[in-house]
Each structure stands twice: as structure tokens, then as C-alpha cells.
């Protein structure tokens, strides 16, 4: 943050952050959510606005490798952070494995929740790889996480799909996680 901007009047704040590998400078009203900064200021409209209250997961992006709801955080709080959105996961001719799996498994209908689902799954797989337990892990003290379908469902519960493509979303994530296909 540019500290010359004194918090007196409704100031325009200026920050620098990395978005999909590119350094970006942004100026905005302090009220701007990270979601609105991405969509309205950087025109990265792959990240979707669903509920705008942290209940649907459509706005999920990765901050410093961790998945979060971009609607429930202020852009100004992400000065110097590294942001990855759905646009940054891959090039069109070389899809991220999760993108390819979502297509192969027909893991969407309208597609509105899909960018959030895929960004969330990227973050979720990293969490599981790091040995993080979940609500359905039988023994939270165990460091070994087997990504069963129940684990995938629990860990993805922050992403709502109004078309209810859940069985195919689980299948797509299972494919990438290396789980046994049924």
C-alpha cells in the first residue's frame, strides 16, 4: 500500500500485487473487494460473483497458494500478494488436469460455479497433499489422508453447484487425485 495515502478522506488506495504471474498496480476505493478488483478493474471475469457473501464459493481464487473467497476480502488487504485465478491455471491449448477432468467427466451444466470449483479443487488437493485433516477424517491426528469420495465431498462443501453436478465434480477431482475410479 502507498502509505502516502493518509486515511482521512475517502481516499483512493494504491496497491501492487501479482495476478497470474503478472505484476499489477491497482487504484481503488477502499471498499473494493478482491473479487470486484479482479473482475471490474483487471477484467478477469473468469472469477464469478454468486452470492457475494461467502456462501457459494463461485468467487474462489488462490492467494499465495491457498484457496479463499475473493468476495469476502478487501483488495487493499492483498498488497504484494500472489493471486491465481482460473485464467492463470493454464493456457487454452494446455488445460490444467482439473480443467481437462471436468470436461471429460461432464462436471458442470451451466458452468457458472465451475471456475470456483476448479480453483477450490486446486487448493484442496494441495491441502490434502500437505496432510491436512478434514471433518470426515477418522483420526485427525493421523498424517495420512486418503482422498475418498467422502473426503472430496466434505473438502469441497464450500462450493455450491445449483445444477447439482456434484457426482461428476467428485469424479473429476477423484481422477486427478489419483483415487480409484468406480
Amino acid at each position, binding site marked *: 500500500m502507498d502509505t502516502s495515502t493518509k486515511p482521512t478522506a475517502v481516499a483512493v488506495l494504491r496497491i501492487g500485487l501479482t495476478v497470474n504471474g503478472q505484476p499489477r498496480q491497482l487504484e481503488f476505493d477502499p*471498499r473494493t473487494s478482491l473479487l470486484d478488483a479482479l473482475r471490474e478493474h483487471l477484467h478477469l471475469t473468469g472469477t464469478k460473483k454468486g452470492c457475494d457473501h461467502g456462501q457459494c*464459493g463461485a468467487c474462489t481464487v488462490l492467494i499465495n497458494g491457498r484457496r479463499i*473467497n475473493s468476495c*469476502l476480502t478487501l483488495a*487493499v488487504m492483498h498488497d504484494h500478494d500472489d493471486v491465481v485465478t482460473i485464467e492463470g491455471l493454464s493456457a487454452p491449448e494446455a488445460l490444467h488436469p482439473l480443467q481437462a477432468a471436468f470436461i471429460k467427466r461432464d462436471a458442470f451444466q451451466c458452468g457458472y460455479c465451475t471456475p470456483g470449483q476448479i480453483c*477450490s479443487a486446486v487448493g484442496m488437493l494441495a491441502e490434502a497433499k500437505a496432510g491436512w485433516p478434514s471433518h470426515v477424517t477418522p483420526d485427525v491426528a493421523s498424517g495420512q489422508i486418503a482422498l475418498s469420495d467422502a473426503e472430496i465431498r466434505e473438502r469441497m*462443501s464450500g462450493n455450491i453447484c445449483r445444477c447439482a453436478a456434484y457426482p461428476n465434480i467428485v469424479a473429476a477431482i477423484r481422477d486427478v487425485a489419483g483415487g480409484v475410479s468406480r
Partner: protein
Amino acid sequence: MKPFTYERVTDPRAAGAAVSRAGAKFISGGTNLLDLMKLEIEQPTHLVDISRLPLKQVEDLPDGGIRIGAQAANSEVAADPRVRARYPVLAEAVLAGASGQLRNKASIGGNLLQRTRCPYFYDTAAACNKRTPGAGCAALRGVNRIHAILGASDACIATHPSDMAVAMSALEAEIELLEPNQSTRRVAIDDFYGLPGSTPHIETVLRPGEMITAVILPPPPPGRQRYRKVRDRASYEFALISVAVIIATDRETITTARVAFGAVAHKPWRSIDAEAALKGRPATLTTYQAAADAAMRSAVGRGHNDFKIELAKRTLCRTLADAAQISIGRPS
């Protein structure tokens, strides 16, 4: 959202002065505060960002306890090997709350200070003494299925929504606070929160400008720990009833027990009455039911939430049986 100004503090000692101006509030993860600001339930005119303060560590203490920095993410604490090994009830409680995305963002201090999810608190067209002191309580005669059954008042029947705080109550956590004059104090979690009485807008003993810096957990008590949450959805939903128990047995006699309920009151509800009914008794369903009755002796339903009294009893019996690893069959 109402306009506000923003500043970030990087030294904990600067936080109290920064937040001392009128209308100022701390912001950390923001997952609850920004939600409420969008609805204009919260209207701070100045935000003090404390999310980058160096208060993110989980540290071992010489007495065998741990100190959890207030700015640690919920997910980091639930994943911490020491928390999982020595305080599994806390890891289970944190993992039972919110979603993966929210747990990555929400701080430990923010979790403690999150506001109720009473729908009348959220509905700015409804009367709410917590939102507008003196306005009345629409929940009393409204749809109060999720509301409090213990310690409520005619001014407010809202519940505290945290899962984490329920486990911390059973673990006898202390909240470490930093005052603007740089002095620190520790408050037991059960003293940190208040009952609604006639002032439900006052939820904690936090003083103006005071900031949560850490949660201190004493060494874990003996026994097995378990957190159970009952809710309308399998995941990503607030509790109807939750229970944290820690129970130690010696040849099927209960030597010590800790019991705390969530979603029953304005604060995490430690039940000393249930604990007294368990200690020294055989680890049987009869004992668990007596403890459940003791825990709910002063419970009052408000109509739609009458079922929560029986649900709390059954949830306690089942959780005690799970933790004691003694089969009780199906509670009647």
C-alpha cells in the same frame, strides 16, 4: 457498504491507538465483518488491518500447553500436528466449522469475535436488541428454531455460532489481550463472553482499543476428546447442537470429565453440572443420561427450538459414549 478509511498496522503496540478513533474497528480475515458491512449491519468509518501482525505462530509453552497466535488462520491451527495430537477436540471443532476457503482466511481471534447468525440480527427490517439496543427482539415470537435454550433473556435469544470456542471452553482456554496502554491481561474463555441479559449488544469483556493477541491452552486434561456437531446439512452449516467432551475412565469408572455445548446459548456453554454428574460414576448410559438431564435442567424452549433440549441430551450421551469407547447401543 458505507465508506470507510483504511490503515494497516505492523506493530501490535500500534493497534490500540489506531483503533481508538470514533467508528474504528479492527479487521483481520474479514469473513464475518465484511459480510456484515455489505449488509450495513456493521458500519465502521475506519478499518485497522491487523492481519499482518506477527501473531500467527502456534508455540509450545514450558508447562506443556500451547499458545496460538490470534492471527493464525483457522485452517493452520486445525492442521498443526501438536493441536491434532494433544488437542484433537479443538482440531475437530475447527474443521466442523465453515468451509475450506473460509478457514484459510478466518483468524483465530476473529472466530472468537464472530457475531450471531440469528436471522433477525441479519434482517435490518426486523427488531433486534443486539443490532439496535432497545428495539426489541423479533426472534422471541418469530421463527426461533435455531435459538438459545440456556442463559437467554427476554431481550435476546441469539446463540454464539463458533464451533472452535466450544472446544476451547472444554479445554479451559485463556484469551490473551493487549490494551492500548501496552499492558496485557488474560481472561478465561468462560469469563470472556457474557450472557445477553438486558444488554445483548455487549458480547465480551473486551475494553475499548483492546486486541486479542493469543489463545493460551493449558496442558490437555487426561482422557479422550471428542467434538460432535449436529446440523441441518452434512457440511458447511452452523450447529443446531454441538458438544465437546473430554472424558477419562479407570476400569469403567469416570475419573474426570469436561463438557461444553455449542449453539445452546449466547456463549459457549460449559456444563459444570454435567461434569459433576459424571465424575466418579460408572461409564454407562444411565450416567450419561443423568449428566444430560443435569446439563439441561434450566433449559427453556421458545417454541420452534423445543426439540433442541432433547437433541442436546442425546448428542451429549452419544458423544460421551464415543469418547469413552464404551458401547451404549441406541440411546432411548
